[in-house]
């Protein structure tokens, strides 16, 4: 019996030798239990040690291994050969990012966008420092010093805190390709996560970025970001909840200037 094999077509790019990326084909033994990541490791260990990609946890939680598999952004460690066998698997780096080498893309812009939404608790003290005119009431604390937060209050933002920063949603978003300045799904969802947290009082400080034309208003609700998200974060919902909120605030600013100004 000959060994079963499976073919992988991988988009390769070596910045020091190639002018543009091109596909390379590898034929490897087929193993039912293998993830795509296992297959790549086999290639790197046995066939071509220059194959370059990111990975670490191999349990779909570190967010390193996003890649485009047969046209769909996916986590390499959560893609299994058995779901494709005997067909060839086509692997490309995440779309809408510059390719550094093979499957590695430039993530610095993404990280800067994450940072831009001030993704940390801004408590009452800090909120009043930022805007002394504003009266903010500190969230009550429990005896031991933790904030009191009911399960329902936690439930409000929990989904948006599950993002592993895998960037699949950026690869899925055509607006991202058309406007690279777009803050993008994951970062906007992260800002929303803090805005929804009962311990946080910093929503005003995030408004500028979130309601910017490169913020939620760059989104046309294609919705594919939420479809590819491996953690059911539903960033499209986060963005469009903010659009609705933004539109409401804008309208209210005419009726009740004070509310609009806050």
């Amino acid at each position, binding site marked *: 019996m000959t060994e079963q094999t499976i073919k992988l077509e991988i988009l390769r790019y*070596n*910045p*020091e*030798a190639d002018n543009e990326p091109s596909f390379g084909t590898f034929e490897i033994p087929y193993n039912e*239990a293998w*993830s795509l990541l296992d297959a790549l490791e086999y290639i*790197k*260990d*046995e066939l071509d*040690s*220059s194959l*370059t*990609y*990111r*990975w*670490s*946890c*191999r*349990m*779909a*939680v*570190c*967010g*390193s291994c996003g890649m485009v598999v047969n046209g769909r952004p996916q986590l390499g460690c*959560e893609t*299994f050969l058995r779901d494709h066998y005997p067909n060839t698997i086509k692997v490309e780096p995440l779309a809408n990012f510059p390719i*550094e*080498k*093979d499957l*590695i893309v*430039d*993530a610095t812009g993404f*990280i800067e966008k994450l*940072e831009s939404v001030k*993704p*940390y*608790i801004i*408590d009452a003290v800090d909120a009043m420092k930022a805007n002394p005119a504003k009266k903010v009431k500190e969230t009550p604390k*429990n005896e*031991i*010093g*933790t*904030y*009191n*937060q*009911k*399960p329902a*209050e*936690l439930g409000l*933002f*929990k989904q948006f*805190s*599950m993002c*592993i*920063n895998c960037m699949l949603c950026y690869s899925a978003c055509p607006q991202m390709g058309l406007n690279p300045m777009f803050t993008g799904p994951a970062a906007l969802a*992260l800002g929303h996560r*803090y805005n929804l*947290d009962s*311990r*946080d009082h910093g929503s005003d400080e995030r408004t500028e970025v979130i309601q910017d034309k490169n913020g939620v208003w760059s989104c046309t609700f294609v919705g594919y970001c939420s479809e590819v998200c491996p953690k059911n974060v539903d960033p499209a919902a986060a963005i469009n909840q903010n659009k609705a909120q933004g539109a409401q605030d804008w309208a209210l600013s005419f009726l009740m200037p004070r509310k609009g100004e806050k």
Partner: protein
Amino acid sequence: MQIVNADIVIVGAGGAGLRAAIAAAEKNPGLNIALISKVYPMRSHTVAAEGGSAGVVQAHDSLENHFQDTVAGGDWLCDQDTVDYFVSHSTEEMIRLENWGCPWTRKDDGNVNVRAFGGMKIERTWFAADKSGFHMLHTLFQTSIKYPQIKRFDEYFATDLIIEDGRAQGVVAIEIATGEPKTFLGCAVVFATGGSGRVFRFNTNGAIVTGDGHAMAFRAGAALRDMEFVQYHPTGLPGSGVLMTEGCRGEGGILLNKHGYRYLQDYGLGPETPVGEPKNKYMELGPRDRLSQAFWNEQRKGNTIETPLGDAVHLDLRHLGKEKLMERLPLICSLAKNYLGVDPVTDPVPVRPAVHYTMGGIRSDQTCKTDIPGLFVAGECASNGMHGANRLGSNSLAETVVFGKVAGEMAVDFASQATQSDEKILAEQGRSHLSRIDAMRNANGTEKASHIRHEMVQTMEKTLGIYRLGEEMQEGVDKIAELRERFKNVKVEDKTKVYNTELLLAFELDSSLMVAEAMAVGALNRKESRGAHQRLDGFEQRDDENFLKHTLTYFNGDKAPRLDYEAVNITRFQPAERVYGAAGEKQGEEKK
């Protein structure tokens, strides 16, 4: 060679490194902090921790309880002053994380909930469903963004420590995106580089857990301590090694052999507790080393279940019901489904022990100081004496923040007293390390690094398993020495500079081999059984007379590491027999 000047250089941006950076930034906002990590911070392996983080909160619990559980769990190889410091500071760290936004699971009244964990007498494990480490890491990373003085160098790979004037004054690190080595200078250096579980084949660790920090400190003269103590987690998925958290058992999951029998009662962990009513320190909530050892024995008796991916036992969670599983263990459910095709709601999950944690590390103490002045260590890379011969689950996430903070603050104190040596001399030092980088880049031998790695992990699995034999360990020592020799003849085929991951893998392998050798040598010479180090060749008992002491290993060039020992700090809890289940309860009564 570019020089990056900072006041404090921190290597590693997992739980410990991020906490150190924040502590340093808060202690002295005027200092510049360079935070170096070979991966983006949220990729650090802290992200994979599932179960939770320990800190005493309940009224009927006490610091003394946590102290005793930890020391007994570590089979009395713990430094008790360190454990004392740890237990009395972990709760405040958990609270701080909460204040920073960590979404700990809550009780209906808005307080934080805690769950039971193996070897812990009373529930004290804070958890965020089964993604505790993920949420801790993201909270710390996101909070660190608040501090402009923390300058991150993401995707920089540290290769060497710079020692001048007898103290650590920086590191050399390669900017992975360009391949350029850079010299980072600072008056104090913190290592928070994580563990080294990847030196074993079957493990729950991520690709980056290769012991780089251990090797850098080791080569610079610091001791690696207690490296032979390697924790096998009893419940990894066959094949991938992906972890099924101890939280599964904390919530009431049970372990069954092929006859559907809860075999743990045969190994001093009984009597059997009713299904669905987990009892602390009984049965499935015994400590990890005991559970892994029980698996080994069941396997010998032919009681394990054969699966295509190797022998296993069943982790049965079905009785918890779908709703509870979805609320408390959602990640576990999806991992089991994806990686094994088993739905825990309807079927028991096959599991087997997998290497999980390295108790040993760079020798330090409760102040995070090391043998090298100016070098502080925290997190899994450190051996500050708190885990002894076996770590209790949920103690190490807490360790990353408790001692991350200490390391950050100590580094600030040290940096504000020290003056930097002449920059020219330091730059020269930095350049001297270039030759090693160049040599690796141009390595043109005949050995394939990947094959050496495969041989290393197989050797470690075979010779340093759950139970150990002198002969086999000797074989392991010899084999690792051979691999180190062969590594000198390695070939790095990829000659590009941009994202040369093959080069980085070679550096990691070099580090892993040194760590592996320290483990093997330490194990071979520990002629007793204690905690995670269990021998079957005439040294089946704990030997307090000769081995109630820490193993120290020192770098010795190409030769095997030099061995030494040092006393364990015992303040008030005298060594006793380590017993669980009903026997444990009896011992507790007698003491009162």
